[in-house]
């Protein structure tokens, strides 16, 4: 167990492309830290710099207090699960897991014990003699996990480990990874672009955008109080609605002239955010929605439409059986504390 500290690191590719312009992050020992963001946000680059697969242009990375910038990946005491698993196709499952241990000259009996233990934990006992191509996708994923855990490293690094699995298996494996990580208590960094995966797995959620950290915090904290409009739009599904308007000391006046009372603001253009699941029907509600499409999901329904008098798209997640039809007009509202106000130009949270 070790903490990982990332201290004002930069990544500039030869040719001058700046992927990470300076970023700091501390991960406590035993914590599962999820890096989430759209593709190209630098999350994988960050992970690969921790692994030692990419060079750090500037700044310092420490694992367990030891500076690792100039260490080979093998010397950093980490292990990694790759998106495509990167299993050695010509080696058996056993050899795949044992390879790293052999390279470290571990005595054979101990290798045997460790691989057997890992195989037991992952339900791979019967497959140790198989080649990767004789396994299903889920089994391969578990071999990749096994290869990571037999090493008993200071940290696990996961690079989108579930994205090659089908939806059902993804949910199941997600739960298994969480349970395994909690049992072993190994510090982990987990990269994904799937916000649901991020929410369910993380102790610490890091939302990244364009090489920067937008927000760090516990998943629920990030969900309830997104620090920026980007985070608000990225975390949560369906995404948060943004209604453009003008801030006043008493509240926000939407572009269609409707006032929503929210004390504590000063002035200027804002986006008023509200999550679809926080909207509910209220005949006196301030948000008037002209319904275009109704998607029935079973327990709930997503009602798509426009804010009356504007072009702003709104989605409301409603439950119940009395659903509107296209063409209807609905009046909606949200509870106190469910409104989020962001500066329209900067995207920074105002309230």
């Amino acid at each position: 167990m070790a903490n990982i500290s990332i201290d004002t690191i930069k990544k500039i590719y030869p040719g001058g492309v700046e992927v990470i312009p300076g970023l700091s992050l501390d991960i406590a020992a035993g914590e599962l830290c999820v890096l989430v963001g759209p593709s190209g946000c630098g999350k994988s680059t960050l992970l690969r710099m921790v692994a030692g697969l990419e060079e750090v242009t500037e700044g310092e990375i420490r694992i367990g207090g030891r500076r690792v910038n100039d260490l080979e990946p093998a010397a950093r005491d980490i292990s990694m699960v790759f998106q495509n698993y990167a299993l050695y196709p010509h080696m058996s499952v056993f050899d795949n897991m044992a390879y790293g241990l052999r390279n470290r000259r571990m005595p054979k009996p101990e290798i045997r014990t460790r691989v057997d233990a890992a195989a037991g934990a992952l339900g791979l006992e019967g497959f140790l003699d198989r080649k990767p191509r004789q396994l299903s996708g889920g089994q391969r994923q578990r071999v990749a996990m096994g290869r990571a855990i037999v090493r008993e490293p200071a940290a696990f690094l996961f690079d989108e480990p579930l994205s090659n699995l089908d939806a059902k298996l993804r949910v199941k494996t997600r739960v298994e990874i969480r349970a395994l990580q909690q049992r072993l208590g190994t510090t982990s960094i987990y990269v994904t672009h799937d916000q649901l995966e991020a929410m369910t797995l993380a102790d610490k959620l890091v939302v990244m955008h364009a090489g920067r950290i937008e927000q760090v915090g516990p998943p629920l904290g990030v969900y309830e109080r997104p620090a920026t409009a980007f985070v608000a739009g990225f975390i949560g599904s369906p995404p948060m609605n943004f209604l453009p308007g003008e801030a006043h000391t008493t509240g926000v006046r939407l572009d269609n002239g409707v006032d929503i009372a929210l004390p504590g603001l000063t002035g200027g253009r804002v986006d008023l955010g509200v999550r679809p699941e926080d909207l509910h029907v209220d005949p006196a509600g301030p948000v008037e929605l002209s319904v275009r499409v109704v998607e029935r999901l079973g327990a709930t329904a997503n009602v798509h439409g426009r804010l009356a008098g504007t072009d702003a798209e709104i989605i409301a997640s409603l439950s119940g059986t009395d659903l509107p039809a296209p063409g209807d007009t609905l009046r909606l509202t949200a509870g106190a504390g469910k409104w989020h106000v962001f500066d329209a130009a900067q995207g920074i949270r105002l309230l």
Partner: protein
Amino acid sequence: MVERRPLLTFIQHAVLILGAAIFVFPIYLAFVASTHTAQEVNTGIPLLPGDEMWTNYAQVLGEGLSTVGAPPLGLMLFNSAVMALSITAGKIAISLLSSFAIVYFRFPFRVLAFWTIFITLMLPVEVRILPTYEVVASLGMLNSYAGLSIPLIASATATFLFRQFFMTVPDELTEAARIDGAGPMKFFRDILVPLSRTNLAALFVILFIYGWNQYLWPLLVTTDESYYTIVMGIQRMANAGEETPQWHLIMATAIMALLPPVVVILGMQRLFVRGLVEVEK
């Protein structure tokens, strides 16, 4: 086949069988000739195998055609095998190493190294006959196995094939190996070479045939008949001056000369076909 046309299908098979027959015929006839006495061959070729097979083959294998100065076939077969296998092993070894360097390292002069290797494609033995002979002579490599094989083991083709294959090996495997503590040579030995097995086998077939069938080169560098290879030795017999050629023995030699590469190509047909089409891509 899209539709049924019995006549067309019949014609197809007929053409193919005829084609195959024409292909096999010269070899069949050579075999037939090698099983008769000289007299039978020289007075109207029989179309069915005779019963002199063991006598003829025993003679060429054991004694050779001493009258025309060709050594026993056994020795020439051995020389051919040494040459073919050295060329094959040498080409594969040096091409594996150099393509590994070119694909998996960035170093100054990398592009220069690549082009230096590439240039061998443009310089077959035939276009630099005399100077190459002079180099080999001045290195004292005439009449030696080294002289027969080493000058032929630079191969751009094999280097290209491996380079192409290495480019398709996923980067993540290299990264996983690095995390597992494997340095470059360990990665090469434990992962890259085992992954190249199919390519190695295909190249083995192609290069073995190439090496075995060398003709001009052994002709240049061997004057001592104990280093003759079988493919060039057969010419010594066929052009035996004024004497009537001993066709039954020449054909026995021809059969022995073509047997090893034919066995290799047929035994490893699948790999060969894949490798050949791959190499030229």
